[in-house]
């Protein structure tokens, strides 16, 4: 039983296709990875967790509160935030503005403050911009605050998306393939950053990853999905040795002829 986040028996079907079949997943802290071949249902699981999809069965609870039926923005306000597999930045806004939008759920200003533009508004706004600068610095985007997001190189866009998600002050961060398209060394740098976030901010992180080296190095726990079902879960070492996992990734013949490492 995980106190922070717990999903039990999550089932999701699209028409006749069962995308998720009674999947259970929980996290209390640290970094957990969800891996699996293409089409295994990893992103669908994220979409259920963050309120984009409503599960057809099962429960999802965050800090003891059910998330089923809540809107994505309500879930973000509770303290969960995500990034997307295909980067979804606000392309025509600056990097700093992207981060500021991430803070939306935490801003306690009404329209009256905005129109009056009194000291309360100005001080809050100044604080927000300072926090945005600090967050950009944290993801190594110092000095890029005024750049339009669209013009940033790919790797920086990925890191900006991370900063934007962090801006909502999440207790749980869901990252959908954060190292996609990165070189091995870029990926390693990002993983070191994630580790620091866990240690310094106490944020728990769930990763969807394809880069096996990254997964095995950084994860505290690994969950393997295949065809919408959880086929293995445990420490990276256990999962690597699991016969069903090898089969899912390499096919039946390969696993039969493969000798144990």
């Amino acid at each position, binding site marked *: 039983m995980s106190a922070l986040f717990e999903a039990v028996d999550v089932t999701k079907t699209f028409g006749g296709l069962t995308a998720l079949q009674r999947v259970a997943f929980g996290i209390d802290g640290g970094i957990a990875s969800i891996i699996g071949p293409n089409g295994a249902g990893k992103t669908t699981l994220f979409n259920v967790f963050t309120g984009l999809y409503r599960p057809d069965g099962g429960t999802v609870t965050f800090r003891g509160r059910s998330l089923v039926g809540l809107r994505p923005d309500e879930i*973000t306000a509770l303290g969960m935030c995500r990034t997307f597999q295909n980067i979804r930045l*606000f392309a025509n806004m600056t990097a700093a503005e992207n981060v500021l939008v991430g803070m939306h759920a935490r801003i306690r200003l009404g329209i009256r403050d905005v129109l009056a533009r009194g000291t309360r508004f100005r001080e809050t706004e100044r604080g927000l*911009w300072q926090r945005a600068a600090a967050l950009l610095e944290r993801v190594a985007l110092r000095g890029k605050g005024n750049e339009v997001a669209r013009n940033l190189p790919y790797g920086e866009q990925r890191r900006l998306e991370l900063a934007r998600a962090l801006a909502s002050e999440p207790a749980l961060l869901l990252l959908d393939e954060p190292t996609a398209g990165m070189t091995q060394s870029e990926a390693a740098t990002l993983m070191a950053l994630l580790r620091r976030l866990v240690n310094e901010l106490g944020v728990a992180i769930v990763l969807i990853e394809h880069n096996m080296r990254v997964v095995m190095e950084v994860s505290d726990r690994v969950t393997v999905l295949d065809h919408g079902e959880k086929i293995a879960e445990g420490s990276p070492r256990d999962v690597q040795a699991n016969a069903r996992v090898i089969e899912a990734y390499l096919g039946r013949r390969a696993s039969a002829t493969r000798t144990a490492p």
Partner: protein
Amino acid sequence: MIAAATAVAFVAVSSAGVALFPRSILVFLIFQGSLLYAYVARIPGWLRATLLGAALLVLMPVIGTYNGYYLEVATQVGIFVALALGLNIVVGLAGLLDLGYVAFFAVGAYSWAIFGSPQGAVLFGGGPFPLPSWWFYPFLFIGLSVAAGTGVLLGLPVLRLRGDYLAIVTLGFGEVIRVLANNLDKPINVTNGPRGITPIARPPLPLEVSYAVGFYFLVLLIVLIIVVVNRRLEDSHIGRAWEAMREDQLAAQAMGVPLVRAKLLAFASGASFAGVMGVVFAAKQIFINPESFTFLESIGVLAMVILGGMGSIPGAIIGATVVTVLNLQVLKGLSLWLNELKNAGVTIFGYNLAGLPTQLEPAKYERMIFGLILVLMMIFRPQGIFPARRRQRELGDR
């Protein structure tokens, strides 16, 4: 330095020109051009403010006493600037394509028209109608609220719609409001149908100037307030949420932007500007009927926003000015000039213009040329005259 001197000289010479030739549209256009130059030139901020302030507060009223029509043009420009700024919030910032925007203008106009004219007595079977003219001022707020409420009412059913679908629904909504205005003369006579409502009371003005000048100042003041409100909304978490919604609705929601509230707020704010200006418009015209609120008006305001540059406050202002001046002066002037040529029997390429068939009347070119300008503009400068520029901030991280 050179730019500053040029700007001052340009404004001074052109305004003197208007004083010398109060009948020449060309000279008045040059005067407007000088203001535009003062606005864009690289001159110190205080000089820009002084020049534009002097032009709008002193020169324009003085010019208006020479030629009242110019003041009428300026007042109309002000009304359309407010409309363009309102639509700019909905379309430019929040990215919700609204093709029925003039409906909110109509709602504001009718709210004052009914109560500020004998129509109120027709509707309620007696009563203190028309209301005393000072009621105009409370009605600015009533028109604002009614329009904002109508905006929310339109917003609620279309929350799930996006892009083309939203455009079609808002188009239908605009038509519904116009048709209602056209037909609500029975069973209860609310709007007096196609005959329209007249006379609508004009507000008492506290200034010791001619009524037209006073009204011009009133419109200027309201536009100024709208610009300030617009800037404050844009430069806050509300404006950023609108833009995020425009860029990527799904990501915006995932980052904690409540879409329903953000959209309704966008519709309501945009509508409220139109509502206020509707009240002003009704008082200015004294007479309104459904013909003032056609689909073409909605498209006209949209053209202003797009021509000026979507999501940009200066863009909306310039767009509204250019389109209004084009319609009221440039194209009119052009067709008058062509008419003169025709009447004088001038020959071009061996063809006598006097023999022009009536189907080719110069007046008929107005719309065509306007359309041509829009097409050329979109081909050569699709981002508009003043595209939205990202605000550069000192982040204290360099």
